[in-house]
């Protein structure tokens, strides 16, 4: 046995070792992931045979998908709303968390305190606690412009309702972004702190200013983390609980028990998320490549 192993070539040995470490995941994929995902895909082309109590699928072609795009009048508008919100939120979250990470890296005073502060909203979790707070309107209370004693009433009347509503929703988005950027800030911070100080030192000798440092050193060095953060943020934006599309899909799954249709909805949704991630991948990937080439 032992001799046999020695006779294996280097690459073969590498391959076996790699497979050894990947084994749990391969087993997990086959046992817990492959079946549900394939089944759900097939289910989206039909419906579950409810009468028999079995897991048989009655196929009906692309009927479910046709229904989504032709008959259903709520899904697509809601989907567009979620897409618009994500187009705003994802870049904003990435920028804000990168900025926080840089500030935390640079700040000398209250360092420890700020690092804890950034992480505090994360401890609320993504689930029920945060939801009940949003239901009570916590996010709107913080930056309240309507009955704020510090803003003169004349200014409010001068600005008019439209602008104020816009401002209010903007503030709301900012608060939500701040509450959901802990994970990204932390990952960026760790990435920034692993950049070798020698890079900045040699840049300083060459006379680079802070602006050039950011563009030529910090940003390229954090771009792998940018990718992970982008993926995470996109997923978070699309699968957060406060999301009308998911509520709509869940309604079909749990209340109306139209499993085939809800699967089809889920797959369309998944496709949208995947396109988002693909675009992020291309943008950040091409940026990283450009840096690798041009320096």
């Amino acid at each position, binding site marked *: 046995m032992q001799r046999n192993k020695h006779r294996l070539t280097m690459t073969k040995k590498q391959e076996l*070792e*790699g497979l*050894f*470490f*990947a*084994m749990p*995941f391969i*087993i*997990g*994929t086959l*046992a*817990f*992931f492959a079946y*549900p995902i394939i*089944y759900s895909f097939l*289910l989206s082309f039909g419906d579950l045979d409810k009468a028999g109590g079995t*897991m048989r699928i009655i196929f009906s072609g692309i009927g479910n998908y046709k229904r989504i795009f032709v008959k259903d009048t709520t899904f697509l508008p809601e989907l567009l709303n979620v897409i618009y919100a994500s187009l705003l939120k994802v*870049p904003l979250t990435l*920028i804000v968390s990168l900025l*926080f990470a*840089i*500030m935390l890296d640079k700040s*000398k*005073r*209250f360092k420890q305190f*700020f*690092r804890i*502060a950034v*992480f505090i*909203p994360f*401890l609320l*979790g*993504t*689930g*029920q*606690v945060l939801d*009940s707070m949003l239901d*009570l309107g*916590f996010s709107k*209370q*913080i930056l309240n412009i309507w009955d704020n004693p510090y803003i003169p009433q004349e200014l409010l009347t001068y600005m008019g309702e439209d602008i104020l509503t816009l401002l209010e929703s903007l503030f709301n988005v900012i608060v939500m972004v*701040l*509450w959901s950027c802990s*994970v990204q800030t*932390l990952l960026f*911070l*760790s990435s920034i*702190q*692993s950049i070798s100080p020698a890079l900045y030192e040699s840049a300083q000798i060459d006379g680079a200013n802070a*602006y050039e440092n950011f*563009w030529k050193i910090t940003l390229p060095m954090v771009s792998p983390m940018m990718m992970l953060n982008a*993926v995470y943020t996109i997923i978070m934006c699309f*699968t957060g609980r406060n999301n009308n599309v*998911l509520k709509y899909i*869940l309604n079909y*799954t749990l209340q109306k028990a139209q*499993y085939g249709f809800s*699967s089809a909805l*889920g797959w369309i949704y998944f496709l949208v998320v995947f396109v988002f*991630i693909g675009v992020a991948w291309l943008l950040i990937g091409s940026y990283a490549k450009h840096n690798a080439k041009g320096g």
Partner: protein
Amino acid sequence: MLTVNNDKLGNFCKKIPNFIVILIMLGCSFIFFYPYLKMLVMSFFSAEDLNNFTVSWIPRNFTFSNYSTALQFINYFQNAKNTLIVTAISTAGQMLSCAMTGYALGRYKFRGRSILFAIVLIAMVVPIQTYIVPQYLLYSKIGWLNTYLPLTVPAFFGYGLKGTFFTYIFMQYFASLPKELSEAAKVDGCGFIKNFIYIMIPIARSSFLVVFVFAIVWHWSDYYEPAMFISVSNKAMIASGLENLSYITTISSEMISESYDVSSEMVINNATLMAGALMITLPVLVIFCFLQRRFVQGIEHTGLTGE
């Protein structure tokens, strides 16, 4: 759009003096701490305080009864014990299996590696709502419903709650380590499993710490999968208790007494909800307070991305 904004902000951020940075961070800290402050204050409100618009921060009628009501209604100690079991087991499982998978993907080249990586990405991206029905059918077929197995066993195979995200974190870390590291160990006659256990795991401890904290917080506050797979009330998770509570605050008192076993002197309102929410996040908060020094510094010194 992204680059233009970054440009201005990055430039701006570098030029403003330190005290403005501190000012901004203090302002943001208020927003970060706001949920906890408000939650804490509101949990002491009496029913009159809730309806009184002039009371916003300091409760006029200080009351502790919200806590006892919330604890009783959520069935706190029973459910916390259940959640603790599931959280501990799945966190341990995920730290082990995700590190292994991340190590394989980050440091080995083998046939099917790109396929596995694609699966990691897909599993990370597909919302669980897409395939929860077939999963439910699968678990009901093998008799795992109303047990903790659907919540814990997949964690040992790189799945479970956000398991593939953890795999990605580990993968990125291991990929960034220099090749020479394991070469040297190999020359000294260290086998590949020993190499992983005695060299790679200690080096990656900051990643382990990050995954540990993430996993604990997420498992603790997870409500969706437990609610799907567990319908027996004495096995319920802590977050689903809060979900019931928040549902009750939205319905009328007649409906409450009809469908729930609630005595008439129990007052359930938003203050109770906040007391419950605070009690639920409290264990996580305590764990974080104990770990925060290590957590923040561990990342700082070793760096999650290598070096």
